[in-house]
């Protein structure tokens, strides 16, 4: 019997290596897997590359990873926001490298990784600072930038519910990067508010089929209604 549910947050992030690339779902706080990130801090891996929309704000989540000096590089679209002082301090000190990627290119590079594409031509960013030095091409009269897939060793994802095969459903806009990150990592770990029996999720409405999920762990935070 296949059971992807693990008993603890520690087990969920076991095997994470120093130098790993980690995708972290979330747009602001919505969909951010705070407990899994706490577990990464406890686990001890360092020199990490974080792939996420933001670079952390306040004192928890990615900000806590920054504060703990575990991050070598951030690939994200929007690092500067209210409360992003831990990122900014590390960045200004030259301790953290930043690869700034337009949000839609971040999404499509993650999608390309999950879908096994070698590279894609995207129109976003053409003619801007963020495409400097990148290969470009004119196709049917429009200009495109060649962008490469972003793969990760781990994806940390927050979902609403899962079954033991790792099938996932999400909640409202907390869905955001979860489904595409789940596909792009070697090991996908999901923090959920609820674990349900196999067969309880409608096969028509499963958003992430279990094939993209390796480990599921129940969150101790109360489920949102």
């Amino acid at each position, binding site marked *: 019997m296949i059971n992807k549910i693990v008993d603890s947050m520690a087990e969920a992030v076991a095997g994470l290596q120093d130098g790993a690339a980690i995708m972290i779902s979330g747009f602001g706080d919505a969909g951010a897997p705070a407990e899994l990130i706490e577990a990464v801090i406890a686990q001890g891996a360092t020199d990490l590359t974080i792939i996420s929309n933001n670079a952390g704000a306040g004192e928890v989540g990615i900000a806590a990873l920054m504060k703990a000096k575990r991050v070598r590089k951030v690939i994200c679209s929007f*690092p500067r926001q209210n409360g992003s002082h831990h990122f900014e301090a590390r960045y200004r000190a030259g301790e953290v490298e930043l690869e*700034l*990627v*337009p949000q*839609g290119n971040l*999404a499509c590079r993650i999608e390309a990784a999950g879908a096994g594409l070698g590279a894609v031509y995207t*129109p976003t960013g053409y*003619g801007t600072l963020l495409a400097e030095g990148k290969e470009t091409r004119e196709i049917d009269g429009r200009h495109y930038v060649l962008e490469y897939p972003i793969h990760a060793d781990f994806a940390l994802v927050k979902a609403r519910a899962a079954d033991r095969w790792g099938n996932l459903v999400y909640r409202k806009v907390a869905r*955001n990067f979860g489904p*595409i990150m789940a596909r792009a990592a070697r090991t996908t770990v999901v923090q959920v508010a609820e674990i349900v029996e196999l067969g309880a999720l409608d096969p028509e409405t499963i958003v992430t089929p279990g094939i993209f999920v390796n480990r599921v762990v129940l969150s101790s935070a109360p489920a949102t209604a």
Partner: protein
Amino acid sequence: MQRMDRTALAARVARDIPEGAYVNLGIGAPTMVANYLPQDKEVFLQSENGLLGMGPAPAEADIDWELINAGKQPVTLLAGGSFFHHGDSFAMMRGGHIDICVLGAFQVSVHGDLANWHTGAPDAVPAVGGAMDLAIGARQVFVMMDLLTKAGESKLVEKCTYPLTGLACVSRVYSDVAVFSVGPEGARVIEMVPDMTLEELRGMTGLPLEMA
């Protein structure tokens, strides 16, 4: 001269959004456009963090932090709305499925180049978000901005000096004193606030403006 304030400007932009349009409103002042869309017409608001059919802000008691817009403000979902992931959300934009997006700007060039993501200050921590995707993805890009900076410099320019967000992507500029079309043929004045003159606009912008 009677300038339009932000609310008047938001109402003016709203008048140019037809029923049935799929619209993305940028963070900040553009978000206010939603308040002036006519109640009896259906306009579809998309938010790049994964929802279509966005409704107004909820009552305090109904705030749900998993139902927010791109500016991370609580919103609601209309009947008929839907949720989707970031890949699908940006496919909507990049694939030309959004009819109109409304954005703020530091500068817009007469040919429609947009600068709205980076001041170019060397010590600034850069952040881009979805600005570049919106700029090149939406079928029409409307910019809402004051015509002049606080220092009195025109933000409608022959050529942007700030780092670009997108090339030749803006079609209209709604400013506090006039509405402009911009594009391959340069800038034209569509309308002005009462008491404004073409001559005065030329003086403010340093551009050889004509009426559209």
